[in-house]
């Protein structure tokens, strides 16, 4: 019965009437979309923060070291061979050999026990291989695998992995990520409530129009349609506002972030939201707006429509 062009016309009519309504009530619209925009901007900004922290700590992975202590009887010659073999191992970026002699020299220079050390006939220190893992193989699980592989070598006495801080740090990141998720869910509920309340007031202010429309045979779906479009438009505008807020915050924070990075001798650029995140933001805004409008109109229009007696 309904041709495609008529379908388009009907929805076009609803969309235009919603858009026109928003424009005529610019102040009320502005208040609603600003609240919604702030609610959407907060999780987006937190997400951006977490991602930047994670990105920045990617550089720290080469600060993770594995110290391989060789057995005392292993000669410097063998240690050099092991260094070569280990350098070619998967997941290893570089291997530095600290010979027993070097280590002793260093210890003598730094500890102040020079005279006491002279009394020793043998060097008690072992040869040590300092391994730097490749940045793309620096996850706790990968490091653990590497540690076990090295430990199995007969020349190796023990392997020490400086990873505790990394585990803790990743745990903190994970905690933050979840906090962002919970915040997002709570604020999404807030967005639905704000849209729902605004649409509810709009429905009440247009009660006469709704009644007449139903009187002349307008279906409930027809009456609800413009309000649903209004909700989606609110969500779309709110998403744009949220994007604007986060972009402005990023610009405002960029100098401080650079200063901080420079203090650590690192190059660091504060990354903005990715295209994927923006897509999710826009989609979330529209879906939440629609949901709020659907809830409010299901409630309000069922009550106000004639024919319920």
């Amino acid at each position, binding site marked *: *019965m*309904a*041709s495609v*062009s*008529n*379908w388009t*016309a*009907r929805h076009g*009519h609803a969309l235009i009437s919603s858009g026109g309504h928003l424009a005529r009530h610019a102040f009320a619209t502005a208040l609603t979309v600003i609240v919604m925009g702030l609610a959407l901007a907060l999780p987006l900004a937190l997400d951006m923060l977490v991602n930047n922290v994670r990105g920045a700590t990617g550089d720290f992975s080469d600060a993770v070291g594995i110290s391989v202590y060789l057995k005392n009887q292993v000669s410097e010659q063998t240690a050099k061979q092991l260094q070569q073999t280990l350098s070619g191992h998967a997941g290893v970026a570089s291997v530095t050999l600290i010979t027993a002699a070097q280590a002793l020299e260093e210890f003598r220079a730094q500890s102040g026990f020079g005279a006491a050390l002279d009394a020793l006939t043998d060097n008690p220190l072992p040869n040590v291989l300092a391994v730097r893992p490749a940045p793309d193989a620096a996850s706790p699980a990968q490091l653990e695998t590497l540690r076990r592989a090295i430990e199995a070598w007969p020349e190796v006495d023990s392997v020490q992995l400086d990873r505790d801080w990394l585990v803790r740090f990743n745990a903190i990141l994970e905690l933050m990520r979840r906090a962002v998720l919970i915040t997002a869910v709570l604020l999404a509920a807030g967005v639905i409530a704000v849209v729902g309340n605004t649409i509810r007031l709009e429905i009440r202010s247009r009660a*006469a*129009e709704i*009644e*007449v*429309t*139903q*009187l*002349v*045979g*307008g*279906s*409930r779906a*027809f009456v609800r349609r413009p309000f649903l479009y209004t909700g989606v438009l609110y969500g779309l505008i709110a998403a744009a506002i949220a994007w604007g807020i986060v972009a402005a915050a990023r610009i405002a924070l960029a100098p401080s972030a650079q200063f901080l990075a420079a203090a650590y001798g690192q190059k660091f650029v504060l990354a903005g939201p990715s295209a994927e995140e923006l897509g999710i933001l826009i989609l979330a805004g529209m879906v939440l707006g629609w949901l709020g409008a659907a809830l409010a109109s299901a409630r309000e229009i069922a009550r106000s429509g*004639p*024919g*319920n*007696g």
Partner: protein
Amino acid sequence: MIRFERVSKRYPNGREALSDLSFEITQGEMVFLTGRSGAGKSSVLKLIALLERPTRGILVVNGENTGKLPLRRVHLFRRHIGIVMQDHRLLMDRPVFDNVALPLIVTDTSFKEIDRRVRAALDQVGLLGKERLLPLELSVGEQQRVGIARAIVSKPALLVADEPTGNLDATLAGEVMGLFGRFNDVGVTVVVATHDQHLVEASGRRQIVLEDGRLTAGRAA
């Protein structure tokens, strides 16, 4: 077309507006519903337009038992009925054209067809050329005629009017009744509730007289 079989209507406040009411209006008839205020005229029209449902009894309108029609089909039922209210219920922020077009907009009517039929309806009530005016720019009589144009634009088989001349002087009231008569001449069943006895007598049409929600006279076989 319309058959009341022992219909009663009791409102939630406990008032019984209609008691054991039975009458029939055949297709193509024009009938006046008369009686004092509060006699139940508006209740009869509300039941016919399915703005209310009978508490007891059976009411068949246009082949549909209104007591049993599912809520989701009420809007389809109403598309076959033109409704004129005393206070005309126009949307004051929309021009005449949009008001009259509303019953067509809610259906899948093309813009071209809407344009043609709205002009035809306005022509019938003598308001062609006033499409772009707002209701407030019209006289009271003209506003009521816009309401009538809206009721007939979808060519309903049944036209119900609740005190359509209530706010009009005698001359305008006569004109409006003349309009209803012309729609009836082309086959539309017309039911008009009014307390204006002069107009009813002048028309010579059948009347159904209500008193305290019961019939008192005017029963047709």
